[in-house]
């Protein structure tokens, strides 16, 4: 049996008395994408942070490629790509410089080539040499996704990636996620944007107060 990209079992996280995530069971395989819908406080971001190994579970377990995401393992190196809604870009550098910096930091063998490829994939080559601070929010988010994808992570965690984007940028971002999934990565996209979520992912679930209250298959026309 193939090890899933992500497996959560009875995953629970409390903040004080509040249960942000409650006994969640979830499996996402390689080459699959899942859209997470739900209002503020539903538990979407908490799940992504647990998957990224940034927070500890109160109880239950979560594994990325069969391993605890808080513990690094050579074979699981840089398996995760995390795109937050605030970008990690340096404003005074260009998108190319930002992505090349990330590629170098990750130890990729040809950072210049990989940076150019990542920017091309996001349709950003024409603005690749302009300072980030001169770009629109949509172009900045595209650059941020190029940075996230440059090391070809096997699990993509996307937290409200289309917030503040124009439709063209959202479409390009979704296309890039689909490409990554088509190439074998798994993706989990937390979003309020139902159209973007359904375009990016075949499966979806709705969380409410840390529990799944609905789920469906977008390829069968099921909608939240």
């Amino acid at each position, binding site marked *: 049996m193939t090890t899933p990209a992500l497996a959560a079992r009875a995953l629970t996280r409390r903040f004080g008395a509040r249960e942000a995530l409650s006994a969640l069971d979830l499996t996402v395989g390689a080459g699959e994408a899942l859209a997470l819908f739900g209002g*503020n*406080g539903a538990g979407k971001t908490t799940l992504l942070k647990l998957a*990224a190994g940034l927070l500890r579970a109160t109880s239950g377990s979560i594994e990325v490629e069969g391993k605890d995401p808080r513990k690094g393992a050579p074979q699981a190196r840089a398996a995760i790509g995390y795109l937050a*809604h*605030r970008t990690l870009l340096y404003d005074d550098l260009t998108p190319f410089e930002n992505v090349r910096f990330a590629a170098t930091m990750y130890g990729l063998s040809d950072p210049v080539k990989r940076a150019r490829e990542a920017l091309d994939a996001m349709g950003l080559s024409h603005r690749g040499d302009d300072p980030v601070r001169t770009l629109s929010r949509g172009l900045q988010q595209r650059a941020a996704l190029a940075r996230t994808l440059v090391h070809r992570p096997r699990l993509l965690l996307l937290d409200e990636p289309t917030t503040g984007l124009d439709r063209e940028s959202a479409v390009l971002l979704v296309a890039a996620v689909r490409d990554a999934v088509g190439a074998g990565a798994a993706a989990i996209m937390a979003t309020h944007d139902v159209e973007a979520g359904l375009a990016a992912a075949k499966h979806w679930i709705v969380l409410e107060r840390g529990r799944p209250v609905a789920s469906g298959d977008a390829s069968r026309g099921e909608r939240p």
Partner: protein
Amino acid sequence: MIAAAVIAVLALAAAAFVLAPLFRPDALEAERAAKALSAEEDLHARYGMAVAALRDLEEDRATGKIGDADFAAQEAELQARALELMKQIDERAAGRA
């Protein structure tokens, strides 16, 4: 019996010829460097995620998505995680110097 022994000796000689480069000092060094790089790549990726999550957390509080109690609990945990990863990166860098 003798034929089997000859075949075994020839097979061992062939294996030794093929595998010998892997045991040369430069090959071992390259393999060690690749493993170290992999671990470093992983640490940098994790550190970047922690910083991104902290930035988002500040925004979530500013926009009222989370309350002060949630913010305080998560900020402390995320900061501790970022510092822990930074320390590991520094230790690796010091080990290389």
